[in-house]
Each structure stands twice: as structure tokens, then as C-alpha cells.
């Protein structure tokens, strides 16, 4: 392939990926409510967004869930990665397998199987069920991110710490955790975005008492295009871009 064809091809793919987003972003500043025609620049829709209390509530719910589930998932995922890296025990391969399968399982299957469990346990759908579901979604990803960072470690560093008298806990606390920190933060940001972006799992595992933003958007979107949804989408994309850039920078560091 010569250079021009390569550039043209890559350009076309990028246009395909970004055209709809650009069109949507443009709409969000368009004074006209219904048509494509440009009726002037406005921040009106962003204003409407801020006065929509149901939407704001949903946004706060989404952020709460994203932050909490990312934190819990980080804790569990890091321990899981540490365990897989450090310990040789029966069922280690099974843990690898399970985490891998959990990562590949379609969202819809995770969603309904957790729903069935919550129903069987007689739990009311709401904050707690949603939190557990999102943690389940995120843990395998955190484990994979942190584990791949552990793999980059020189194992003799951990042996050196033990050699110098550190217990398992001290090794974890003073050596593994600080060294894995960039991976951990990246894992956190990843979980944060996963949770914020999720539609399907939330759809099944939360109830009317705790509505989250993507579900709110979903019910609005089914009724067609709305300028305030455009504005909201643009804001969510910006949050995603910030999180992705940050996590990439952290993973790149000291590589």
C-alpha cells in the first residue's frame, strides 16, 4: 500500500467514526429544535439541561455509582491480580478462566443472571443491586489491567523484599501497591468509564428508585432526537475523553 492510499483509508475510517459525533455536537449548539438547518449558535440546550432536575438526579446517581463501584472494583481486582501473580494455589487456573469468561460474557447475560440472583434473594432493585452489578462488571477489567502491570515487574524485587524480612502483607503494602499504582489508577478510570457507559446491565439491575443517566437518556432517545439530549451526550463524551486520556498517560508513564 502506498502512503496516499493508507492515509486516505485511515481518514475514511475516522470520518465514519467521528461524523455522527460531530453532527451531534453541532446540533447541541443549534438554535433550531427540529431541522438540520442552522438557526444560529446557542447554549440554550445546555441551560435546559441544568434545569431538568430528573436528569440532574440521574447524573448524580450515575456519578455516585461510577465512583463507588470503581473504588470497590479496584480493591477486589487488585487483590485478585496480586493473588494470581504471587500465589500458587489450587484453582489458580480456574480463577484465570473465570475472570476471562466474566470479561467476555455479553452484558445482557451478566445483567439478567444477576437479576435472577437478586430476585431469588428477594432483594429490592436499587442502589445496592446496581452497585454490586457494576462491581461485577468492572473487577475482571481491573484485575487484567493491574495483572499486566505486575507481569512487568521483576519478580526478584518481590523476593528481595521478602529476603529483607517483609511479610506478605508488608510486601503488598510497601512494594506491590506503590509500584502498581499507575496501573491501579488506570484501572479505576477504566471502571469509572465502564460504569458510566453501561446501559444493559443497569437496565436489568436497578429499579425506579435509583435511575441512572444512560437509562434516562435511553427513555428519552426512544422518542427521537432532542437537542437537550445532544447537549448531555456531548458532556458525557467530554468526561469520557478526559478519563481515557488520563488513564493512557498513567499507563504510558515509566514504561
Amino acid at each position: 500500500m502506498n502512503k496516499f492510499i493508507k492515509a486516505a483509508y485511515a481518514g475514511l475510517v475516522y470520518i465514519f467514526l467521528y461524523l455522527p459525533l460531530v453532527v451531534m455536537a453541532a446540533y447541541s449548539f443549534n438554535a433550531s429544535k427540529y431541522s438540520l438547518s442552522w438557526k444560529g449558535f446557542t447554549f440554550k440546550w445546555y441551560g435546559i439541561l441544568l434545569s431538568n432536575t430528573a436528569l440532574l438526579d440521574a447524573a448524580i446517581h450515575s456519578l455516585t455509582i461510577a465512583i463507588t463501584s470503581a473504588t470497590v472494583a479496584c480493591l477486589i481486582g487488585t487483590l485478585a491480580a496480586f493473588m494470581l501473580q504471587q500465589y500458587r494455589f489450587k484453582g489458580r487456573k480456574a480463577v484465570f478462566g473465570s475472570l476471562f469468561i466474566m470479561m467476555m460474557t455479553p452484558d445482557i447475560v451478566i445483567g439478567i443472571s444477576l437479576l435472577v440472583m437478586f430476585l431469588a434473594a428477594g432483594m429490592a432493585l436499587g442502589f445496592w443491586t446496581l452497585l454490586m452489578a457494576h462491581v461485577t462488571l468492572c473487577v475482571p477489567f481491573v484485575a487484567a489491567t493491574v495483572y499486566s502491570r505486575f507481569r512487568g515487574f521483576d519478580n526478584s524485587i518481590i523476593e528481595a523484599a521478602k529476603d529483607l524480612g517483609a511479610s506478605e502483607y508488608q510486601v503488598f503494602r510497601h512494594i506491590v501497591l506503590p509500584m502498581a499504582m499507575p496501573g491501579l489508577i488506570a484501572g479505576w478510570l477504566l471502571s469509572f468509564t465502564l460504569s458510566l457507559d453501561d446501559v444493559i446491565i443497569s437496565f436489568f439491575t436497578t429499579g425506579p428508585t435509583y435511575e441512572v443517566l444512560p437509562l434516562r437518556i435511553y427513555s428519552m432517545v426512544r422518542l427521537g432526537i432532542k437537542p437537550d439530549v445532544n447537549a448531555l451526550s456531548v458532556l458525557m463524551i467530554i468526561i469520557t475523553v478526559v478519563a481515557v486520556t488520563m488513564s493512557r498517560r498513567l499507563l504510558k508513564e515509566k514504561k
Partner: protein
Amino acid sequence: MKDSLIFRRLVISGILGWIALFGAIPVLLLTGVSFLQRHPSDLIEAVFSMESYARLSDPAIGSMLFKSIMMATMATLLCLLIGYPFAYIVARANKCHARTMLLFVMIPFWTNTLIRTYALVAVLKADGFLNTALIFLGIIDAPLKIMYTQTAVFIGLIYTLLPFMVLPLYAAIEKLDHRLLEASRDLGASRWTTFKKITIPLTMPGIVSGCMLVFLPALGMFYIPDILGGARTMFLGNFVRDQFLIARDLPMGAASSIAMTSLMGIMLLIYYRNLRRSGRTVRL
């Protein structure tokens, strides 16, 4: 030494317990429910029954399943076809460009797929960007009817899932040692032979995981047909959701998602075998 053992045991049993509770039990329960009978008021009745599985071969459900799988397969193949050369270009670009190019694949990858699906509406609808542009350029006279058709769903799947194909492909191609390709050419293989005999086999893990990341969500993402395909189109994802939330037929919903999971199981098996054949250790 004692503290070490306690910490170790705590961690191992904690993680194993967590996996059992949130990984294994829900799936086991789901499997269990799929073998039960529907009950009009209590949702399910504790009677063993294969009825739900038998109903999967109903002509109506069967054709829906077939259509869903065909749609997902086609979307996967097209994503691979578009994604492989693209991933190759990104992976082989110089370092500085590659970073930026990759970032611009990451952003749609991590952006809410619902939002991206919604963004497509503004492009595809009758008075949307695409039709306006085509009419303006004089290519067509009347607006194309794309929205609320299967074509729209198909475009939607490819649009939302393409980044999920590109990223694993990129990772695999990037790891590929360029010297191997040079060695192959040096030994007299043509470009095409090198691609077929060296590049494809060595990037196979990326191809397989990319295909799985596209195929499985393509079956399950019920909101794409909902938004782009209109009310009349029914795919596996919508079907499962409706069994749970509208028809309240839990066993049927469970059985159809178990069918979906088995499909995933088969694909995973092929993937693992593939890895073993190429002599690689399994990585998360």
C-alpha cells in the same frame, strides 16, 4: 510467618468467594431457571421442564434467532474487513502518529454506545445529514429510507462495534516483530504469502478476540434495533429483554440467554485451542 499466612488465606478465600458469588452462582441460577416452568402469578414454578428449550425451535423464534446470528456474523465479518487494514495502518505508523491515531480509536471505544447509536440517528434519518448531503451533491433526488430498516441496524452495529474490533487487532499487530516479515520476504515469500503465512497466524489471537468482542455484543445490544430499527424489528437481545420485562416469561428468557452463552462458550473453546496451538500462554 503467621501474619503472612493469614493474609494469604484471607486474600485467596475472599477472591474465590467473590468469584463464586458473582460469577458462578448467577449463571447457575440462570441455568436452573431455564429448566423450570413459567407460572402466571409467581413468575416461575419449581417444575422441571425442557419446554423453553423446545420453544427455541419454534419457527417464529427460530427465524428470529437465525436472523440475529446472521446479522451479528455479517457485522463481525465486515468489522474485520474494515478493521484489519485500518489496525495495520495504525500499528505500522510511526510512533508519534500511532499514539494520536490510537487515542482517536480509544475515544469512541470508551464513549457510551447508546450515545453513539443515538448520534447515528441524526445522520441516517430521512431529513438527516446523509440524505441532505447526498441530495445537495446531486447523487440522489429523493431521500433514502434508511432509518427504521434492518440496514440501519446493520450500520449501527458496525458503527458502534468497529472500535472493539480495531483495538485487539492493533494490539496483536503492534506486537508482531517486523523482522519476521522481513525474514519471510528475504527467504523468497511474496507479500501475499508473507501475509497469509506469517502475519495472519501471528495476529490470530487479536483476530479471534476482536471477533468475539463484536459478535457477542452484536447479539445482545437490544437498544440498537430499538433506536435504529424501529418497533417492528426483533433481535435476540430485544427478545431476551422482553421475556424478562414484558412477557414475564423468565424460563424462556433464561433459556435463550443460555443459548447465547453456549454460543460464547463454543467460541471461547475455539479461542483457547487456537492459543494452545500457537503455543502461547493464556493472557487476560
